[in-house]
């Protein structure tokens, strides 16, 4: 089968930008708060199921897209209050506890919606001509949303008071507290905000995926790899990481089976990650 290069490029861009949207919440909780939240995939799933539930309730997709960040943000706040902040000094236990929370969320979804998979219709049908190739309009919308969120994050982080407080806390937590900043409240707010972004991403990508209780891990690993291989912190670094992981997977899958593509990207990212991890460790020394 001949491959249309324009379509190939569009697909790779779409996948990279979708992953960017998915990873942006993680970039906040991991990159800024420093919490490795293994329940992040399940928060995304919760966003997707929120969209599904509201769509089924007849409220339509847009209501879901608007409410998912609120609902999942609250879920994140709860997770921070009950679990994450209690384990601040025990990072290994944070991993374990958020992994447990992931299991709890997943099984709650199974209990509420059953183990089967669901789909929802994209709210806008049809396609738009891009560089002469027809492309689904809703995918383009999701791509635009990813760019919007990245822009918003950049603005929040670099042009607002809260952003300055967060950057100060990231740079030196003790000094931030000793300067009068309420670091715990900042943590909670940033964690909840990261969760809200996960909810938004989950709802926005829901019409593009099959929605099932196991989908969380499918979100989590590529998103984590994207954040981890990011050459620099901040939203722009995340964008580069997402381009590497998401775009890479899309390009490989054009020439090989999806399973091979996933494995190749997971393996490739893992190798890249080793280098990045080594470099970061070297820098901290």
């Amino acid at each position, binding site marked *: 089968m001949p491959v249309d290069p324009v379509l190939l490029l569009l697909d790779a861009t779409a996948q990279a930008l979708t992953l960017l949207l998915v990873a942006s919440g993680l970039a906040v909780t*991991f990159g800024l708060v420093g919490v*490795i939240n*293994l329940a992040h995939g399940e928060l995304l799933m919760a966003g997707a199921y929120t969209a599904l539930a509201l769509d089924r309730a007849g409220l339509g997709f847009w209501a879901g897209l608007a409410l998912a960040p609120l609902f999942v943000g609250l879920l994140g706040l709860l997770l921070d209050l009950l*679990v994450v902040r*209690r*384990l601040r000094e*025990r*990072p*290994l*236990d944070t*991993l*374990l*506890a958020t*992994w*447990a*929370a*992931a*299991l*709890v969320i*997943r*099984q*709650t979804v*199974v*209990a509420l919606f059953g*183990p089967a998979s669901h789909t929802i219709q994209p709210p806008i049908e049809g396609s738009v001509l891009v560089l002469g190739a027809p492309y689904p309009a809703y995918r383009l919308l999701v791509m635009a949303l990813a760019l919007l969120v990245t822009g918003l994050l950049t603005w929040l982080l670099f042009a607002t008071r809260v952003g300055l407080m967060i950057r100060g806390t990231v740079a030196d937590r003790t000094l931030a507290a000793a300067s009068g900043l309420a670091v715990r409240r900042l943590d909670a707010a940033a964690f909840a905000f990261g969760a809200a972004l996960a909810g938004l991403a989950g709802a926005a990508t829901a019409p593009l995926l099959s929605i099932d209780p196991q989908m969380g*891990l499918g979100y*989590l*690993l590529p998103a*984590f*790899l994207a954040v*981890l291989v990011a050459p620099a912190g901040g939203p722009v670094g995340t964008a580069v990481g997402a381009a590497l992981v998401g775009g890479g997977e899309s390009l490989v899958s054009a020439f090989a089976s999806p*399973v091979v593509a*996933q*494995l190749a990207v*997971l*393996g490739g*990212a*893992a*190798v890249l*990650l*080793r280098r*990045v*991890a*080594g470099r*970061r*460790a*070297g820098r901290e*020394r």
Partner: protein
Amino acid sequence: MSREPLLPALVFWLVLALLPLWAPGWLLGQLAQHLGYGLLAMSLAYLWGQGGLLSFCQALFFGAGAYAYALAGLGRLPLLPESPALGLLLAVAVPTALAALAGLLLVTARVPTGPAWAVLTLVLGVIGERLAVASPFLGGSNGLAGLPPLALPLPGGPLELVDPLPSFLALLLVAGAVQLALARKIAAPSGSLLRAVREDPLRAAHLGIDPVAVRLRAFMLAAAVAGLGGGLFAAQFGFVAPPLLGLGLSTEVLVWVAVGGRGSPLAALVGALLVKTAEGLLGEWLGAGWPLALGLLLLLVVLLFPQGVFGGLLARLARP
């Protein structure tokens, strides 16, 4: 914990050894399988509790051992004879070799207990599971069935480990030997080295310890123990499938070890036996609620009993 107390271990093994006097056959058969899981739990307790290396893919090595046993037992390996005994050997050798390979990726990352390590173990687990499902050689998602049992060469003719009692006793001996060996290892100088690297890899490096080598050895030892458990499990179960190496089982073993006590292989083993027994009693009744209960259990244990339920107890006994 730097030392496994000997007395509770001996009491524990003695009580288990006396079980066949009154326990029904089905319970022994079940316990034999659970002791196979117990080996997996002990391997994780060593890696995580002693080495500080929390692995989200420990079942990968258990499953690799199980598959290695299955392939050799069914005579599916090129150039190698169809032999359960060889299978058991490979059940230890293959996971160890895999761990050496994976270790090059994982352990040599210079922040092994950081986020990179955790995510990499998850990635490994996913890769392993997907490969097993996609590989016709490994039987795909159906797995491999009809495995031959292990046989002990006794003077009066070989004794196949099929019936509950011999299976139970064999597993008891192996698990007991492994537990005591791990306890010795933990108390030995090499155990202190591992803990020194866990506490402060940089300082350990300054003291002339190679943290990468120490961690790699721990990773391989844990894989060998897990693989042995997997091989023995497959020998009794007669069947292997991708869930034996998947993230689901990897998560379960985290629960066992967290509940029992990460610091001590014995406590982790007890955790595995208890949780698996509880699953046998409650699992059917709770149905799909069982995984939910496991998740909540793990959450509560991490928050309230970081040493595990038995780990704290054993630590108190270990104190002079």
